[in-house]
């Protein structure tokens, strides 16, 4: 079993606030998690949840208040480890007086590539992100989506082992999103570790081996997407056929919702047999019984609601 590529241990980040920076606001609290080698890990959470803070801490852009982290077994303070890491910042902005090719060439110099290697690698990356015809245009003329592609190109320019992407789908049209998804899948198939933050849950469900949900600076759960939502599954769905003119089935039809010619009703797990008995007595014909698996989105919203409720409770008790 491959070891962890990213290990985070009790990472906490407080930001100073106020005019004299005397107060602090906790942005991340005691975050501990691991991302296995070769894993695609989705970091989910609403805006301001602490996703970008975590990623910036990993990249050494900001420093933790407490806690530590390692990437590929080396502490995040070791800048030389960046040779094996690719990073796409959120809403990336680059030197707008450079062309995409010049920017990539500039960044490639930090990885000790010679002129021939840089030229070859830059052309390959521009092609990979669909910018081969725009490589000689200054970045100040690029759209947001094009900048995002340049950002992705510079993140994988040096063929890193670990790729960290902060909201990689942001600002992209559906075609661009699909292309980024394909790149992530390609990286995954090459055995690279990919950590990306997103609030687009379908992308996470589609791409990730594992997801971590962070809300209010606290990690709420980590696991496989199906596993994480499965934890909250306590309901069953019963699908049945019933004659709309049969008075016996009126009560069960009233409890169900109609879709096409069939009816479906949700019941708590413990009441399944009672509900089936009720259907039999009503003369309904059973079509299917299946557990209701909440979507990642439902789970996510549930956590967000819970966090908001807790925050308002604290506020009220504080008053």
């Amino acid at each position, binding site marked *: 079993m491959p070891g962890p590529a990213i290990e985070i241990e009790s990472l906490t980040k407080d930001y100073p606030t106020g005019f004299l920076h005397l107060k602090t606001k906790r942005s991340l609290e005691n975050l501990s998690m691991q991302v296995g080698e070769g894993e695609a890990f989705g970091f989910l959470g609403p805006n301001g949840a602490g996703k970008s803070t975590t990623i910036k801490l990993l990249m050494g852009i900001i420093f933790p208040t407490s806690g530590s982290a390692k990437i590929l077994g080396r502490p995040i303070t070791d*800048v030389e480890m960046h040779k094996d890491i690719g990073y796409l*910042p959120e809403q990336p902005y680059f*030197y707008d007086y450079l062309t995409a090719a010049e920017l990539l060439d500039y960044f490639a110099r*930090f990885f000790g590539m010679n002129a021939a290697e840089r030229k070859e690698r830059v052309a390959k990356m521009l092609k990979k992100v669909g910018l081969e015809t725009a490589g000689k245009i200054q970045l100040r003329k690029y759209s947001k989506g094009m900048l995002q592609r340049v*950002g992705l190109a510079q993140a994988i320019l040096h063929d890193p082992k670990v790729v960290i992407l902060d909201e990689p789908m942001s600002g992209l049209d559906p075609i661009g999103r699909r292309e980024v998804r394909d790149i992530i899948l390609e990286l995954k198939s090459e055995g690279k570790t990919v950590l990306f933050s997103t609030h687009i849950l379908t992308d996470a469900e589609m791409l990730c081996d594992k997801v971590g949900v962070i809300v209010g600076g606290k990690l709420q759960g980590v696991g496989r997407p199906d596993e994480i939502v499965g934890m909250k599954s306590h309901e069953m769905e019963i699908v049945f056929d019933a004659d709309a003119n049969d008075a016996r089935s009126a009560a069960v039809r009233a409890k169900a919702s109609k879709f096409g010619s069939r009816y479906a009703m949700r019941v708590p797990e413990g009441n399944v047999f009672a509900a089936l008995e009720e259907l039999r007595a009503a003369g309904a014909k059973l079509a299917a019984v299946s557990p209701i698996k909440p979507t990642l989105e439902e789970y996510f919203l549930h956590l967000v609601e819970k966090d908001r409720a807790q925050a308002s409770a604290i506020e009220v008790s504080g008053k």
Partner: protein
Amino acid sequence: MTRIAAVAWNTFREAVRDRVLYNLVFFALLLIAASILVGQISIGIETIVLVSLGLSATSVIGLLIAVFTGVGLVSKEIEKRTLYALLSKPLQRWEFLVGKFGGLVLTLAVNTAAMAAGLLLAILYVKHPLERGDATAFIAVYFILLKLAIVVALALLFSCFTSQLLAILFTAGLYIAGLFISEMRNLDATRVGPAARHFFTAISYLLPNFQNFDVMAAAAHGRPVPGLLILHNTLYATLYCAIVLSAASVVFGRKSLK
């Protein structure tokens, strides 16, 4: 070293593409106008006027670039978040700072060299052949460049921990104070009191001494500059820049970006 050179080259490229060197056009026009005019209004002292004017313009334009571009070297990268992608590369923060410093000093060197060439042409226009004493003007240009390097280092240090406006004020303040070092050391204790005298004497050794770099009068009159002063100023500027950049590296190394 390759990484520092890469950052320096990109800083130079930014300055060129942001049209920083366009000031040379202004300088050229100023010298052309001065060359034509001095011949008519200052008989016998054309070279003095021309050299004084040329060196003053070189210094003032260089200072404006050093201060205004210098304070933006780091803060602009933080504000625009261009630094995020750069710091994710195998690049130490001190290497970034030294590269930025080197890039702006390179820009100023190119700028100052072009101005020196322009000044040479203007001197040739009003006086030929040249005399040995005219070389002092170019030593003065070198001293201006050394002075500008110190100003860039100071601007860079301030831009690591304060706003651009405050960084401009601090850098300009230190520059002005650095022009009055001998006055600080020669304060009359009977008038300001012994405590103030000791204070200003101590401060004068911490502040950059820009008076040593001013050889404009010697240059204008074609007087030679001692070789020891050239060596002293070179070492002084190198050491002062190294100390200021080290302080900037300590500050920037601990700075959490936005």
